[in-house]
């Protein structure tokens, strides 16, 4: 499936996520090496670099987690979710391992409380993982 077809395929799930998250600013679903599949809330000029940056954030974050002196059970499985905050807007990013198909990276930014953002993000991740 090419990126456009994948974009159509996953768009409904992304739209559901954006609908259920108050004060959402944008959402990006992209490949781990930084190519956009579907985004909401960004224009074409922004999409390329946001997809690249999202994937880079996850790559660097995963390295940071791997480098931490965590115990044998703590931190197992590597980076789960990366969060950032700026002026009350929470940005959370996850890597999604799919049962059938390549991994993806999902990022969402919203001015909702962090717990709400993470809850919606994780349930969306579970849906996409099964697709």
């Amino acid at each position, binding site marked *: 499936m090419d990126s*456009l077809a994948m974009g159509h395929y996953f768009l409904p799930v992304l739209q559901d996520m954006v609908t259920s998250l108050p004060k959402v600013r944008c959402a990006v679903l992209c490949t781990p090496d930084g190519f956009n599949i579907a985004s*909401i809330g960004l224009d074409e000029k922004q999409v*390329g670099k946001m*997809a*690249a*940056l999202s994937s*880079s954030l996850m790559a*660097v974050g995963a390295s940071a987690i791997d480098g931490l002196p965590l115990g044998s059970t703590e931190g197992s499985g590597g980076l789960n979710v990366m969060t950032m905050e700026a002026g009350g807007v929470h940005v959370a990013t996850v890597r999604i391992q799919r049962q059938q198909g390549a991994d993806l990276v999902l990022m969402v930014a919203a001015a909702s409380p962090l717990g709400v953002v993470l809850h919606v993000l994780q349930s969306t991740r579970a849906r996409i993982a099964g697709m």
Partner: protein
Amino acid sequence: MNKLSVVLGHQVEQQVAFVGPFGVGKTTALRAISDVPVVNTDVDSAEAVGHLTLQPSGKTTTTVGLDYGEWRFPDGKVVALIGVPGQDRFDAMWDALLPRSSAIVLWIYGDRDPTRLECRKWLQALAQRKAVARLAVAVTRVPDGQEQQVLDSVRELVTRFHPLAPVLSADPREPADVLQAVTMALVTPYTALQA
């Protein structure tokens, strides 16, 4: 919320990567050829002091994420131009970014590293990631009058990884030089060395 725009798929059909040691000019080279302002993740760097690479603003910086620029074409297609951080501690980025690149330009200093240790390290890292076939090596700051000698020494090393030795002297501020380095990486034939 319903007014949020939707973008599906990507118009980025290819990606060109600039790699190389700290301060060599990767960000500068991107800026010389990008159609859009280069997204830059430089931070202040304690490391820079030893390398005397003061920026015009007086700050010393290093790239810790990636630099991102683009070429845009009339049909809407986009080529991503990325600068990859040079220090070993960022090798996770290299794994993520290099395999998908259609062309890789390795920038190295011409006025230091006489034993070419740094260049060899980079070539080995690229070879491990199967990224040597579409490579060009751009040598900056070649001292006046030493072009032949410096380039020959770099060629001798590069030939061990790429028999046709795509090497050129280049100023990362000059768009013509940067474009040539990219063109070389895109079109160089390559024959794998016999094991």
